[in-house]
């Protein structure tokens, strides 16, 4: 029923899923759908698409600049949803998760946004600055539209809060691997592994790990114990480095292929 659930079920016991993050509309709206297909060719299991926001408080410089480029190129929340619909015309299998900040969604209206996502073929939504405590109305609308609601866990999340967040989440749990913003470079893999063992005791859902995974080596290390490896800033930087949109997509595809190759059989702790 849920593409996200099916994808994790199919991978269970084999390897960690790979979830690349891109900013929708970066550098142009027309680049995003070809890029999404390239990510799938490179081995992405799910795709996370960022909805640009003027004030991305949880993001480091790489994704901040991607948001600014996308907004300058005319990206809006509706335009990003339309891009997913366009992607769905050729790919009905790969789960797509939208990630963004509350305000544009609140301004559109939770119900309107959720129904538009459902129609377009979006599978799940993560609103970075909306913890479960503030999400009662949003969760009701998302559930009505068949969308998974993904929430963050972090190194500062208490054991009591793990239960609250687990109860509010569907699809998978997103563990933020370090204290900081996206694109940070102080990942401590042993620490993450230890924390994840605690998270798993109370989590009924698969657990993805993101923030601070920058290359094939760190992806492989995290992939040994996580159900999914989420890579954002490093991919957004590859897109920014291309001399043309085509070259940027090709460079990003090659990078994601390397990440995928690093996630070998035997990884993924949950069977």
């Amino acid at each position: 029923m849920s593409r996200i659930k099916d994808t994790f079920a199919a991978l269970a016991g084999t390897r960690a899923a790979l979830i690349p993050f891109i900013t929708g509309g970066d550098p142009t709206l027309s680049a995003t759908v070809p890029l999404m297909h390239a990510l799938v060719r490179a081995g992405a299991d799910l795709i996370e698409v960022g909805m640009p926001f003027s004030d991305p408080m949880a993001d480091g410089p790489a994704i901040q600049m991607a948001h600014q480029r996308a907004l300058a190129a005319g990206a809006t929340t509706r335009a990003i949803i339309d891009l997913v619909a366009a992607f769905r015309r050729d790919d009905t299998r790969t789960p797509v998760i939208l990630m963004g900040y509350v305000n544009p969604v609140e301004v559109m209206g939770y119900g309107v946004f959720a129904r538009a996502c459902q129609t377009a073929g979006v599978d799940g939504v993560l609103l970075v600055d909306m913890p479960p405590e503030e999400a009662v109305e949003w969760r009701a609308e998302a559930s009505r539209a068949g969308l998974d609601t993904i929430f963050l866990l972090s190194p500062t999340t208490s054991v009591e809060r793990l239960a609250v967040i687990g109860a509010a989440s569907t699809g998978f749990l997103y563990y933020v691997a370090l204290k900081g913003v996206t694109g940070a470079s102080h990942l401590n893999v042993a620490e993450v592994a230890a924390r994840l063992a605690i998270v798993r005791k109370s989590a009924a859902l698969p657990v993805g790990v993101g923030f601070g995974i920058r290359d094939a080596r760190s992806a492989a290390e995290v992939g040994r114990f996580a159900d999914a490896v989420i890579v954002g800033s490093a991919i957004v930087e590859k897109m920014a480095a291309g001399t043309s949109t085509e070259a940027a997509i090709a460079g990003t595809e090659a990078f994601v292929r390397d990440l995928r190759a690093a996630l070998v059989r035997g990884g993924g702790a949950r069977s």
Partner: protein
Amino acid sequence: MSYEQPDERGHFGPYGGRFVAETLMGPLADLERAYREARGDPAFQAELAADFRDYVGRPSPLYLAERLTAHARGARIYLKREDLNHTGAHKVNNTIGQALLARRMGKKRLIAETGAGQHGVATATVAARLGLSCVVYMGAEDIARQAPNVRRMRLLGAEVVSVTLGSRTLKDAMNEAMRDWATTVDETFYVIGTVSGPHPYPTMVRDFQAVIGQEARRQFLEREGRLPHALVACVGGGSNAIGLFHAFLDDAAVALYGVEAAGKGLASGRHAAPLTADSGRGVLHGARSYLMFDEDGQIRDTHSISAGLDYPGVGPEHAWLKDSGRARYVAVDDEEALAAFHTLTRLEGILPALESSHALAYAQTLAARLGPEAALIVNLSGRGDKDVETVAAYEGASTCRA
């Protein structure tokens, strides 16, 4: 009926709350707990009271501005002289409170955002006094227009970080401070400068600033033997206004006026008056409130001659006070604020901050309307020394254009 806001999760009606990424949820819960304990601790309150008296110079005077009153031809205008506080504005009331709390929590490093630089100076000041390190985030545009305060912060030992992304003003400084806090949360205390941000900040900052209204109410009763007809204060995030209003909320006969920045005029769209323009409700910097955004929910660039009011949102308690009808919100444009700046300077020998000049401009209009039997209090929230260059540059430019 007695005023009881916010609820236990920091909601003022539909406003406020705690809209932050998960990394900050635990630290905010810790802060809330530590603040609740400190608030109930007589030793903490005694230290705060002693600092207010001996370090800030409280109580600040309530001054009857006779020549301004004569000029406005109406109600007697009293000025609550927060400009006479140490560091020159009301901001220090809050930074002393938060710094004492930071020390109590064992934090070694303070960070702050600043617009006009007054909150940055007030944070750098208390950091110097308590031997804590201090980093202040400030938009590049504000660094250019408030240079004297940047120099003061550096003299006090603070590192001033220029924020060059986004609109390069207060909102971007706050984004950057939040990013720092998420990264360094174990050792850092984030000193938010206004009644905005995630719970418990709007409540905590209000409580520290409430001393303004508590004093003003007592001082006015002593002078006039009755309550004032109205209170007037400028509103950016809204901390000096909440501070003045709070002791009077249950005094239904006292009218409360918050004065926002109309910038180039409400019709121009180049303003910073989300309440007056009724620009809609949204979520920014951890709280739901009135907010300025476009049809896609992207935060709009704002404009005001005063850096301290140049912010697209407003504290959630103001949103609640507007909806409940307890306070009214109006807006004053750059030219009117500038005129009031000159009027007070020439008639009373007091240089007001450009932020406070917005309140002074509206107070004169209101005084004329209320008539000579009435009396009102304006919060003179800060002094204008920092604005001398801005005023000269603005008027130089206007003269050149003319």
